[in-house]
């Protein structure tokens, strides 16, 4: 395992907001920071502010399970997630900052005959899209991750899994800090404790934002607020086809290295990896109801723990250290919404649901291009808001791997 880097004294300034910027990005999480970075680096647009209502990367970026993979079913999703995975593979070098990207592979388990058929179908679809994927049987699962219980005598036996070797995890905080530092060095203003309370328009065109630190004029505004994007969009009268739900995760105490890969199970609702320091990081399905409270229901954790113990009997004596929830914005087809809005120069990046972290560099690049050019990047074209009117949905519930 990679050594942890020293915690630096500082990575960016905390400037006062200027009166105006070419581009204002709302939301200082992974997506907002990556968007600002690529705006500056790729498109030379450096008069950019990232506005964050709390502290940088303190929302979903601090609350996810850091899994990175691109084994989605449809061509449209493969396009954007594989684009992202390729950027992950060069990101440490690009940012000049360690992110502890560890390509330890991901197993997506199958527990029923239908699971098996769906999984094999997805593997073949992945291969056709040039994505590394293979089907492994129960013995193969055991070989890749020896602590998985592959006994046929459990309620939901492991019949096999899809395996993507290039998948893995990264250290979410370092990813955010790496993007923040690099964006700051290119001239981007990162403004914390600055909540957007209004979006101003004139003649159908966005002109700026009202914030808790005063009015900021903007040529273009990009929304990157994940679960809270519906609330922002309402400020300008825009309805979005999203429901925001708590998505819970938890970690154990520090343990010796026992878990060499990432294991996900859609059917029994748990996904597990072992963090670099040694915690077992586990995610669950979303809570059914809408919520913004960043906490969820106890019975979800109970079901998640039951599933984890059946799959990994070795975890039986591990102590739970802490739990939390992020707020995920789930769209009707479990795919993101990226692109233009009916308001000119107001751009939208939301609806990533449970899948946002893995997309961080990819969406930063694609959303920056969309903002800079004023038209969707080719990987964003299938993910427009009007697909819900045209019916051209990208139905990825099957590959989202979390029960939406």
């Amino acid at each position, binding site marked *: 395992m990679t050594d942890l880097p020293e915690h630096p004294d500082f990575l960016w300034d905390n400037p006062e907001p200027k009166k105006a910027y070419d581009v204002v990005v709302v939301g200082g999480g992974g997506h907002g920071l990556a968007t600002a970075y690529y705006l500056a680096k790729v498109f030379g647009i450096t008069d950019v502010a990232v506005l964050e209502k709390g502290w940088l990367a303190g929302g979903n970026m601090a609350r996810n399970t850091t899994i990175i993979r691109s084994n989605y079913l449809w061509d449209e999703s493969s396009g954007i997630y594989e684009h992202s995975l390729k950027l992950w593979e060069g990101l440490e070098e690009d940012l000049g900052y360690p992110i502890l990207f560890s390509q330890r592979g991901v197993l997506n388990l199958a527990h029923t005959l239908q699971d098996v058929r769906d999984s094999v179908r997805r593997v073949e679809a992945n291969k056709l899209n040039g994505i590394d994927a293979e089907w492994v049987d129960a013995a193969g699962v055991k070989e890749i991750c020896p602590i998985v219980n592959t006994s046929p005598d459990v309620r939901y036996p492991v019949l096999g899994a899809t395996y993507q070797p290039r998948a893995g995890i990264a250290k979410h905080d370092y990813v955010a800090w790496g993007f923040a530092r690099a964006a700051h060095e290119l001239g981007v203003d990162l403004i914390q404790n600055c909540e957007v309370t209004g979006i101003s328009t004139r003649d159908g065109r966005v002109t700026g934002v009202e914030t808790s630190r005063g009015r900021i004029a903007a040529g273009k505004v990009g929304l990157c607020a994940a679960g*809270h994007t*519906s*609330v922002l969009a*309402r400020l300008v009268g825009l*309805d*979005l*086809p*999203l*429901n*925001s739900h708590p998505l819970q995760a938890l970690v154990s105490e520090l343990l010796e290295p026992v878990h060499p890969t990432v294991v996900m199970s859609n059917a029994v609702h748990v996904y597990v990896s072992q963090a670099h320091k040694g915690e077992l990081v586990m995610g669950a399905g979303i809570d*059914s*109801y*809408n*919520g*913004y*409270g960043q906490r969820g*229901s*106890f*019975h979800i954790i109970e079901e998640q723990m039951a599933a984890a113990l059946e799959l990994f009997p070795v975890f039986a004596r591990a102590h739970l250290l802490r739990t939390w929830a992020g707020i995920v*914005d789930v769209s*009707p087809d479990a795919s993101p919404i990226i692109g233009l809005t009916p308001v000119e120069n107001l751009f939208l990046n939301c609806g990533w649901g449970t899948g946002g972290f893995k997309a961080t560099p990819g969406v930063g690049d694609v959303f920056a291009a969309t903002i800079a050019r004023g038209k969707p990047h080719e990987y964003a074209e299938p993910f427009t808001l009007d697909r*819900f*009117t*045209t019916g051209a949905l990208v139905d990825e519930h099957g590959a989202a791997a979390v029960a939406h």
Partner: protein
Amino acid sequence: MQLIPCPWCGPREEAEFHYGGQAHVAYPEDPAALSDEDWAKFVFFRANPSGPYAERWSHSAGCRRWFNAVRDTRTHDLLAIYRLDEPRPVTS
């Protein structure tokens, strides 16, 4: 675990209930007259407020009846419980 007061059975554990999403979404009166945009609004677009939200719940492991609730999505506090044929109560 959250207790939800079923109008017929009284307070029961949340795990006995099934969530039904936004309340008061009426099927269009004249479906043939709807544009694609109207259909999209009806099928896919729901309110998603940070604050009080009128929504449907079913006591699926109890009396199996549906009812409406106004719940604050920030705190999960249940502000009102009412029957499907009743209007949304004022909760502020």
